[in-house]
């Protein structure tokens, strides 16, 4: 958000060291803003997840604290902070205390590079996607540390599982990212979005069949990196009691969960940015030019509209991530590795290669029509899948002679 700072301070005629001071203050403000957003969102997601899970299981979910139970997460957070901080005697005291704070930045720092809208990013790094991939793998150190220092056999198994899982799934995830990066020719998150367009057929997911597959590869691997079901082996409740979390209580426990829920947002935001056109608004080919041409009020309108687009897409994906968690069983350790190395990695290479071939195909004359028709067909397939899902859900309701009812929906 350096440009906002520049535009703000442009008329102030500050001395150089004052500018530096103001910049530091600005960074603090932005960091606090991102932290607040992340905290609120992670808490809010925990409530949303419980409501959605409840609904899927014919329950209602938390609906007592605040309007529709919307403040449940605050109550739970408060409860966890007030709980006794139990540190078992046999643990490694330093590492045990340190582990949550290593996990936390892994989730938090990723927010710095996420483009929430046109120019709305805490930091527009040139190697944005690379930075996020790197910083999210920091989580594994904290988890391994937690598993080791707890001095509990279940915790240790969980920690080791986590290390194996997250490191393995970096590879297909990286390959899927490369598939997109090859098309866009940049690692910058902003430019990755700019390389796409507003309408679905401009999105990278529908660019060609290979990126379509890459989307699902990336989805699977980033779910695995975020320890979400079906890849929640490190904390597998029915196998390892709670995995690396077993010995944690209260606030420290909360820090792990906090990161997990913040990760849900990171997962969805990354998928949106890389594959679903990010903040692009349908019908606007060049949002930058539109904003430049608009009045000062119009500028805000367009920026907010782009933020809204991003939020809509990301929220849909958050729903999908939560839904997957409450639908699928968990993989076994060896199956997890088989899925990674036998399925996702080879497929990742194929998508990278295929996408590169599409890139070198000429784009003039008849080839333009070819590219356009491929995009159109892929878009149709994508929408057919969504429509099929809804139709199948409709069938399920009627097969059981149930009625559609939104009772207690909120």
């Amino acid at each position, binding site marked *: 958000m350096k440009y906002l700072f520049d535009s703000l301070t442009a008329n102030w005629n500050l001395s150089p060291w004052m500018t530096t001071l103001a910049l530091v203050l600005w960074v603090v403000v932005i960091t606090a803003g991102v932290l607040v957003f992340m905290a609120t969102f992670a808490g809010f997601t925990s409530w949303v997840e419980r409501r959605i899970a409840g*609904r899927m299981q014919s329950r209602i979910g938390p609906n007592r604290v605040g309007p529709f139970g919307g403040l449940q997460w605050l109550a739970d957070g408060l409860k966890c902070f007030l709980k006794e901080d139990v540190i078992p005697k046999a643990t490694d005291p330093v590492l045990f205390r340190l582990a949550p704070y290593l996990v936390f930045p892994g989730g938090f720092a990723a927010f710095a590079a996420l483009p929430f809208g046109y120019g709305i990013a805490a930091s527009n790094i040139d190697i944005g996607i690379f930075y996020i991939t790197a910083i999210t793998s920091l989580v594994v150190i904290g988890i391994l540390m937690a598993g080791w220092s707890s001095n509990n056999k279940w915790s240790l198994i969980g920690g080791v599982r986590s290390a194996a899982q997250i490191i393995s799934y970096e590879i297909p995830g990286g390959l899927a990212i490369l598939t997109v990066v090859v098309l866009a020719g940049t690692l910058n998150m902003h430019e990755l979005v700019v390389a796409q367009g507003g309408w679905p057929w401009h999105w990278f997911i529908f660019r060609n069949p290979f990126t379509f597959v890459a989307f699902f590869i990336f989805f699977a691997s980033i779910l695995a990196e975020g320890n979400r079901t079906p890849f929640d082996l490190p904390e597998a409740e029915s196998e390892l009691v709670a995995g690396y979390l077993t010995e944690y209580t209260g606030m420290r426990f909360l820090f792990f969960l906090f990161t997990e829920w913040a990760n849900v947002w990171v997962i969805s935001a990354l998928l949106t940015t890389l594959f679903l056109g990010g903040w692009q608004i349908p019908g606007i080919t060049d949002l930058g030019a539109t904003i430049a041409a608009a009045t000062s009020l119009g500028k805000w309108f367009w920026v907010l509209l782009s933020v809204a687009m991003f939020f809509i897409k990301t929220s849909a994906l958050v729903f999908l991530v939560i839904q997957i968690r409450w639908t699928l069983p968990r993989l076994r350790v060896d199956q997890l590795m088989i899925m990674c190395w036998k399925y996702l990695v080879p497929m990742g290479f194929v998508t990278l290669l295929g996408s590169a071939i599409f890139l070198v195909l000429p784009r003039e004359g008849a080839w333009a029509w070819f590219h356009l028709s491929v995009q159109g067909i892929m878009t149709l397939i994508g929408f057919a899948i969504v429509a099929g*899902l809804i139709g199948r*859900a*409709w069938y399920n*309701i009627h097969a059981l002679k149930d009625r559609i*009812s939104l009772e207690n929906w909120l």
Partner: protein
Amino acid sequence: MLKQYFKNIKNASTSIFEGLAVTLSYMVRKPITIQYPDRIEKPLPEMLPPTFRGILEVDTGICTVCMACMKRCPLDTIYIESERDPETRKNYLTRFDIDVARCMVCGLCTEVCPTGAIRHSTEFDAVTSDVINLVMRYVQPGDKIPAYKVSKEEEPPGVPQNEPYCRLKKQWDAPAPLQPDEVRGAVRWKKQTSKQEGR
């Protein structure tokens, strides 16, 4: 081999698709949760079928003091005392305690009752801060209730079958005052007269 490889991918994606469709469909179906205890249309005991075996309750007015329920109870939950007036030769009920905390609501006592004096209510939430309060005392200390005589001509004025019977609630709100010693005395009695002789 390669065929199997692609078959696995296809199976996985179609089955995950089917699963997601099921969970998605439940987003717009009615939840079955009953929001007990506050957000329900009527009190839960009234929603339960009359056959429901809840906490035992006694209509001492029609108790014949036959003590069949006390003998039948496998857990010695019921404790009845009676007194015979030496002049009028009439039987009086002087004590009728049911220890709800011991009761396993099996319903054997209600089946042997000749008049339907002891039967199950549809109440079930026996929540109390002290387990002593769960000893339900149907005859206050000092009271004497004449035993009911079953006449051959008329039907016993028992409660009509298949109709919920919730007189208990009133009694529940104000449990009979009971001293801990009394309860212990009752328990001791049970131990002494226990039918459990060794072999």
